[in-house]
């Protein structure tokens, strides 16, 4: 079970004239929970299928534990897959499904029985061993798929949106279980998902993909807090974005001075030495609201458009004088602040939380624009 390091070396896959995966490089260390995160069509599933051996790369190499497996068929790789739609064999019961691959590992009958039992216990499905897949719930089927792959003790387990077909509650439960399971078995998990919260919850590292390329790789916290560009910022949950012009480029020691509309702001995050047109990003939970008459640094005045009660927090939409609407997340603590619609406020954008991102219109995720709630900042029409 040791090992499980994967190296992707300039991996490329073209379907006809279309480039699905465009020169991906990545180092995945043994025992890591590594997520490929991106919207549909970004090439994450194609990458996974190349790792599994279902697609032949157009160029580039896949190295598994030091051995080049780029052109090996799926059955010759110590890699197993958990499919999005489980692909459990409907004519076999749970036990036979889990035992399916053991035939090729030349185990004795006793060993097969023992390992299948262990695998089913691992996913807490022991009592269900005699059932057919059709007699199980979606979550149970997913566990069988997991057991069927893990029983073979692969070096790397590939998971293709395994929770995608489940309801939200089941998904949250299984996320935690899956992470715990991965830590217990110590196998490298490569996890494909389009759900940012799923990736943030479970991963050791996340690779955010867009248009066949990896845009950013890092720990969940780093990717979330320090997105490399507007695309990543936007994709990893709601982020306030606004256009700005750099007035004085900053450095490591000095914040970058930018003009957002008529307002001058300081930003310490992101590419502080950028020049010209940039985009500013700030998470809703980092925006603080203050009374209109208070004197606040690094703030833009605005009017509260509406508020949405979310339970633990209140979402406040503020239309800024700079011409955009941003979203602020105010915790519903003891001194629950109330900001009725129409209240003039000052929205403080702390320099440490304000990030300067390179302005690359091509990288702007158009398909995300519609999906992001009204809180995300768009240039006013």
């Amino acid at each position: 079970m040791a090992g499980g390091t994967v190296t992707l070396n300039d991996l490329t896959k073209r379907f006809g004239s279309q480039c699905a995966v465009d020169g991906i490089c990545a180092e995945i260390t043994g025992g890591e929970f590594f997520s490929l995160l991106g919207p549909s069509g970004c090439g994450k599933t194609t990458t996974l299928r190349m790792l599994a051996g279902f697609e032949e790369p157009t160029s580039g190499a896949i190295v598994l534990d030091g051995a080049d497996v780029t052109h090996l068929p799926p059955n010759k790789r110590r890699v197993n897959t958990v499919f999005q739609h489980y692909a459990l064999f409907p004519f076999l019961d749970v036990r036979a499904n889990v035992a399916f691959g053991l035939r090729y590992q030349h185990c004795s009958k006793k060993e097969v029985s023992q390992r299948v039992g262990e695998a089913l216990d691992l996913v807490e499905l022991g009592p269900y061993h005699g059932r057919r897949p059709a007699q199980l719930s979606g979550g149970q089927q997913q566990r069988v798929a997991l057991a069927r792959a893990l029983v073979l003790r692969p070096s790397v387990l590939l998971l293709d949106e395994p929770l995608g077909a489940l309801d939200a509650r089941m998904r949250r439960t299984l996320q935690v279980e899956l992470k715990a399971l991965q830590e217990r078995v110590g196998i490298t998990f490569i996890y494909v998902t389009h759900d940012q919260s799923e990736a943030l919850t479970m991963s050791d590292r996340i690779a955010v993909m867009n248009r066949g390329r990896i845009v950013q790789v890092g720990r969940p916290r780093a990717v979330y807090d320090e997105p490399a560009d507007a695309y990543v910022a936007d994709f990893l949950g709601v982020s306030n974005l606004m256009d700005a012009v750099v007035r004085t480029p900053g450095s490591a020691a000095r914040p970058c001075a930018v003009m957002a509309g008529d307002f001058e702001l300081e930003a310490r995050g992101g590419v502080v030495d950028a020049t010209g047109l940039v985009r500013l990003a700030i998470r809703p939970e980092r925006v603080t609201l203050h009374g209109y008459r208070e004197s606040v640094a690094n703030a833009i005045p605005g009017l509260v458009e509406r508020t949405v009660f979310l339970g633990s927090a209140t979402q406040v939409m503020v239309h800024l004088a700079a011409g955009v609407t941003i979203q602020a997340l105010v915790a519903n603590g003891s001194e629950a602040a109330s900001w009725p619609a129409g209240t003039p406020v000052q929205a403080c954008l702390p320099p440490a939380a304000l990030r300067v991102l390179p302005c690359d219109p091509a990288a702007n995720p158009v398909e995300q624009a519609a999906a992001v709630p009204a809180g995300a900042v768009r240039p006013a029409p």
Partner: protein
Amino acid sequence: MTGGSLAPSAATGVALPGISRLGRIRRLRRPSILRGFVWLYLVWSLAPVALAILFSFNSGSSVTEWQGFSLRWYVGDPYYSVLHDPALHQAVIQTVRLAVLTTVVAVPIGVLFAIGVHRWRSRQASAWTFVMLLAFVMPELIFGVGIFLLLTNLLTFIRLGTTAQFLALVAWNISWPAIIVRARLQSIGAHYEEAARDLGASATGAIRRVLLPLLFPAIFASVVLVFAGVIDDFVIVDLLSSNAQSEPMSVIIYTLGAHGGSAAAPALNALATVMLVMSIVTVAAGWAVYRRLTRGERRRDEGLSLGPLTGA
């Protein structure tokens, strides 16, 4: 409008009180002229068959006057019963022989054809699928005459008789397994096979351990359809028969029934009944086994069950 949409649920017996009440109202309103027409149609189409079956059990030799029940025309009569008249007896054997041979050869070829064309995925592949579909719309007579001319003019080393009948029936019946299995392949998709490969099976291993079991209901359905189809076939086997030895039941019934001959009329009725029962039993048994095979699938995944057979 509402009544029309509710009628199916009433027919399937859904135990919703309001709906079943509405369904009953609708039944009362149904015009009785339609019901009469349906009964008339059933009597018209089934009465001759019922009469033929009935008089095959007549103890006398009349086909119009009932003289008591007996199995005389099946086994009893030492000269004219199906069992003892060599021509009738031979016809049953010939029919079963052709049905078994054709099924055993046509179904595997059709299945392989379907898998091949499914993998191939090209313009040529869809052209071949079209050729298969063409066999469904081509009149059997045209096909039969074509084969007849081919065998009597060009391929003269193949004699008319069982061999010719067998070859033509195989060619004519390959479409069934090809179309049915291909339809099922399309609903199965590639992911089961990919899962098998992923778990360590070789390409052929995945076909054997995963694809064939998944295809089994479709293969079984093809077996039933081909077998029953050959039993019922008349045009091809008649055109390509050479002598009394190679005349199956349908041909005997036609020649002796239409043109008269040595056999007694009730014995022909008995032969026809044997043929009918063979077909019905084959299809009924096939349907029952098919329902059993796909029981688990139908509950959850309608996509996997095969429309033509379960859809009724």
